[in-house]
């Protein structure tokens, strides 16, 4: 089997440089590649274009890169939890492309799947449609959206094997599988790294063919954004 294992996060991020476009998995703080983000902060890599559904919170997730002004442009669908993001955006310091979440997911999938563009009804008649081709299908207007790819896609998984096969846990899956497909180089950080043969082919979510480097993350804080509980009556 082709092996993808690298020994640590430094090796995993070798070659990630200024001005690059990165895809970062996760939804809110759920399923984010925490160790890789911390390493990007440590490396001081700057002028980055980040494609990620959200921007983290002020002091965790991508918010850490925003605080250090390492991001030049964000491509996201929702940035509401991050005041620093909103501030940088409203002041013009940060370039932002807000795109519908479904279109973001499908553009990443298409990027990994060799589909250069596709039509979707989402956003027709809104700001999102400006400058885009429109075509009618079944009597309904659709806009043309193009595929997204990245120099590096950095994803987080629950388990991975030496061949780069990945399994995700619960809603920490979210954008990770589609971004894994779309990176020129995909880096996977996992909680459990096992030898080939331990993950059943029936249970693998993302085939290792999409993954170029895999490493075991040293520490996962797994911060909860909104701890909501019901009381025992």
């Amino acid at each position: 089997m082709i092996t993808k294992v690298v020994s640590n996060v430094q090796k995993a991020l070798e070659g990630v440089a200024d001005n690059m476009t990165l895809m970062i998995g996760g939804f809110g703080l759920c399923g984010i590649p925490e160790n890789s983000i911390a390493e990007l902060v440590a490396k001081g890599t700057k002028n980055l274009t980040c494609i990620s559904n959200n921007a983290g919170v002020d002091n965790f997730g991508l918010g850490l890169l925003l605080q250090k002004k390492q991001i030049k442009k964000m491509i996201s669908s929702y940035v509401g939890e991050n005041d620093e993001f909103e501030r940088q955006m409203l002041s013009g310091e940060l370039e932002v492309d807000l795109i519908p979440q479904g279109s973001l997911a499908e553009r990443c999938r298409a990027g990994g799947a060799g589909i250069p563009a596709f039509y979707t009804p989402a956003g027709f008649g809104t700001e999102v449609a400006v400058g885009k081709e429109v075509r009618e299908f079944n009597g309904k207007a659709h806009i043309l959206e193009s595929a997204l790819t990245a120099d590096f896609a950095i994803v987080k998984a629950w388990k991975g094997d030496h061949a780069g096969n990945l399994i995700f846990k619960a809603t920490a899956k979210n954008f990770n599988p589609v971004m894994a497909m779309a990176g020129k180089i995909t880096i996977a950080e996992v909680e459990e790294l096992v030898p080939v043969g331990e993950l059943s082919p029936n249970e693998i979510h993302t085939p290792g063919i999409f993954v170029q480097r895999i490493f075991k993350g040293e520490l996962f804080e797994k911060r909860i954004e909104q701890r909501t509980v019901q009381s025992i009556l």
Partner: protein
Amino acid sequence: MLDKIGIAKRIAQELKDNTYVNLGIGIPTLVANYVPKGISVEFQSENGVLGMGPFPFEGQEDADLINAGKQTITALDGAVYFDSATSFAMIRGKHVQLTVLGAMEVSEKGDIANWKIPGKMVKGMGGAMDLVASAENIIVAMMHTNKKGESKILTKCSLPLTGVSCVKKIITNLAVLEVMPQGGFKLLERAPGVSVEQIKSATEGSLLIQGSIPEMQLH
């Protein structure tokens, strides 16, 4: 006049047996607490879970299991997890029968604005544009007027749009309204204790009032 819970309870009456439902953040999430007895509904959350359950008990929160509003949740027996492209395939492919979401403004043509106040609030649209562009059945949960008492039920939306000609039914703290195919709102029900006059003066868009308007029946 209804509070947020009252609106959620009235919306829950619209749930149909054996359907898949997506609930937006805010008031819509409360609908899950009032599913009528005897009907089976499965809740889909755009971030990748079907069969969403109630909030966990204290000490059982799982950081890997959240809803679209980033709140910790549980999953019921029969639940399933999937990636974001599959999630929006369910939404765009019309496999979800009902979408409930909030709004800042709705127009009498069925346009909806709920993601941006230029220069002031630009949180982003999240999954809202996909949801409104594709759903067969959209119910909007909202306050009838804003904090300044200005109507949010308008002739034309002033804020950047989320979708066009897509809203069919609106449930507010004052009323149940329908958007008619030819345009214009039709008043269907009054909130408990609310008069037709109150609703008329809170509605800027054109409002059709036919016959006597019944009061919402909430238990």
